[in-house]
């Protein structure tokens, strides 16, 4: 039986929730600049948000075999996400219980145990202390469980996506995801066998608060402006056949696409209704990518009409699925936000490839993936760079102390614009900021509560 240790603030520390009146800082229509700029608020977030709710850690395909590991973070906590010798997935604190040294400095690998480079304490990949050098120098029995590595007490996967939380009272992951799980299912199930495998990433860092990225995740308002260089580039030869995200250019709210808030800070933007529902409907929208004309001709030659369904697998799925606070599925990417400090964040776009489920054959899968790598490199190179430049400039703008508020009220109070459904979900036009108003309610709920946080150790 795993032992849990309750997490409490250090004694003598004043209650951090007394720091601010959270209801003042986040109002229905606006948020105060301090939530993006104050290091003290960031510090609270690193336990109450990154710890208090489910945070995405890794994808199972990154640790496919027993003893595989990958180093990640939960908030600022350095973790080793392992598939242990018994195939159990764990999120170990990458912190020696002796003096606090990180045990593992590699990004990934395969190891049954981790030895501290400082004094040689050695831990199994279950987190259990295996031994220390010259134990007779200790008066006590070093088998006390308190010397086993701390680990995230709850680690659960949803169809390959590994999440962790320190909150013992959090809903089971699938319940926490709720209605957005169905959209995740749809995102996966369009791929052979309902599976994807992570295959490296486009990795960005920006000097801005992590919430600037999450505030962007469902934002259909910025596209025509922030991504103007992309829209112009991907349509430079398109003529009447608008490519890529061109449907954002003129009154995007009249398009059938929409955003939906599904609870717990999660939301998705669904652009699929903008497409023609036919094999090749997705592919038809793709802008220029390396090799696309060759592979299209080759697939048609080899597979006839079936070619279009295969080409769609290389097409970018037009949906943004966002799980608060750090996870998005968009196009074929898994995007992850990693807070580094109040003003610095990593935004990592993990690429995914398809695997053969026995129906496609190796040749088709190799070629689909060759094309799918190139379609995935397009947006990070020509779109994301401009977004993160804008995030950095928001962080600069918010240094103006006296001008306190950022507004998120687009759509608020406009009659007939927002639909609230019986299941509690909310639908709004694609450029609405309802998603942001709603995820800030969740942020505030998390920030107000100390939660029932714990770490675990092997007994």
């Amino acid at each position, binding site marked *: 039986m795993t032992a849990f240790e309750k997490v409490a603030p250090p004694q003598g520390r004043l209650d951090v929730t007394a720091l601010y009146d959270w209801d003042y800082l986040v109002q229905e229509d606006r948020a105060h600049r301090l939530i993006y700029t104050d290091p003290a608020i960031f510090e609270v977030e690193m336990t109450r948000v990154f710890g208090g709710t489910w945070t995405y850690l890794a994808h199972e395909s990154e640790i496919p075999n027993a003893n595989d590991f990958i180093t990640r973070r939960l908030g600022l906590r350095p973790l080793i996400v392992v598939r242990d010798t018994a195939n159990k997935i764990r999120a170990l604190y990458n912190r020696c219980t002796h003096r606090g040294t990180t045990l593992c400095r590699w990004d990934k690998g395969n190891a049954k145990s981790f030895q501290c480079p400082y004094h040689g304490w050695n831990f199994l990949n279950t987190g259990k202390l295996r031994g220390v050098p010259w134990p007779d120098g200790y008066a006590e029995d070093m088998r006390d469980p308190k010397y086993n590595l701390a680990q995230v007490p709850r680690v659960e996967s949803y169809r390959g996506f590994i999440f962790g939380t320190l909150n013992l009272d959090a809903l089971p992951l699938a319940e926490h995801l709720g209605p957005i799980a169905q959209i995740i299912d749809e995102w996966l199930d369009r791929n052979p066998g309902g599976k994807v495998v992570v295959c490296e990433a486009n990795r960005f860092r920006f*000097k801005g608060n992590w919430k600037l990225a999450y505030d962007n995740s469902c934002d259909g308002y910025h596209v025509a402006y922030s991504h103007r260089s992309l829209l112009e580039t991907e349509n430079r030869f398109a003529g009447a056949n608008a490519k890529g995200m061109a449907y954002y250019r003129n009154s995007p709210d009249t398009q059938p696409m929409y955003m939906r808030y599904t609870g717990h800070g999660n939301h998705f933007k669904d652009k699929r209704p903008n497409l023609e529902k036919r094999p090749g409907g997705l592919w038809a929208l793709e802008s220029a990518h*390396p090799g696309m004309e060759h592979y299209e001709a080759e697939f048609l030659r080899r597979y006839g009409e079936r070619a279009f369904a295969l080409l769609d697998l290389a097409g970018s799925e037009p949906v943004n699925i966002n799980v608060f606070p750090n996870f998005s599925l968009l196009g074929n990417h898994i995007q992850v936000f990693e807070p580094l400090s109040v003003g610095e964040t990593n935004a990592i776009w993990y690429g995914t490839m398809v695997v053969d489920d026995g129906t496609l054959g190796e*040749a088709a899968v190799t070629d689909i993936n060759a094309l799918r790598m190139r379609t995935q*490199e397009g947006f990070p190179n020509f779109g994301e760079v401009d977004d993160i*430049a804008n995030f950095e400039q928001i962080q600069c703008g918010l240094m103006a102390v006296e001008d306190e508020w950022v507004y998120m009220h687009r759509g608020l109070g406009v009659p007939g614009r927002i639909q609230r459904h019986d299941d509690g979900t909310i639908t709004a036009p694609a450029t609405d900021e309802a998603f942001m108003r709603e995820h800030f309610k969740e942020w505030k709920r998390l920030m107000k509560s100390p939660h029932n946080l714990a770490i675990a150790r092997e007994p």
Partner: protein
Amino acid sequence: MNAPATNPKDSDPSRSSYYVNDAFYRELIGNFTGWQDDARAVADAAVRDEFRRLLEREARLLDQLRYDDWLAMYAAECIYWVPSTPQAGDPRREIAVMFDDRRRLEDRVYRLRTGFAWSQAPASRTVRLVSNVEVFASASDAARMLRSNFLISEFWGNETRVLTGWAGHRVVRAGAGWKIQAKQVNLIDCDQCIRNPSIIL
């Protein structure tokens, strides 16, 4: 594995991409595997100087944002490849930081010129040092492989930072001179998070 698809002889690689096919990928991987072999190193100072000048000119054109002149240094069917791992895995199954064919390279330049590429508004100022140039013979006398180290000082967003690594160029004979057929840019931190990777390396 695959028979080549219809590749219209008159297809313009600036407009359509037929040459990036499975055979091309396999050849690219082959050309960039095991090529830094002492036995194939070219010692002739004049040859090394010729290619050193080619690489210095490329660096200068990029520093001066002379993209048309820079693009003209490349073969019509070319690749600009920035791997996302130090071992540069198979680009058919590994996302690259950048993997541009001729058309995407021209897209990259087009985007920078739209005036709406916020990541380059205002544009970075760069100064590139190119050094340790080595020339290696290729299986074909019509091609050479070049290895060079680079250090790009980039001023952007009120800060100067350094991007560094090594590049592998595959150059092919074109008339009296040489064109760059493939450039592989190996950033030393290619598998880490990079701030504003929006200049051409």
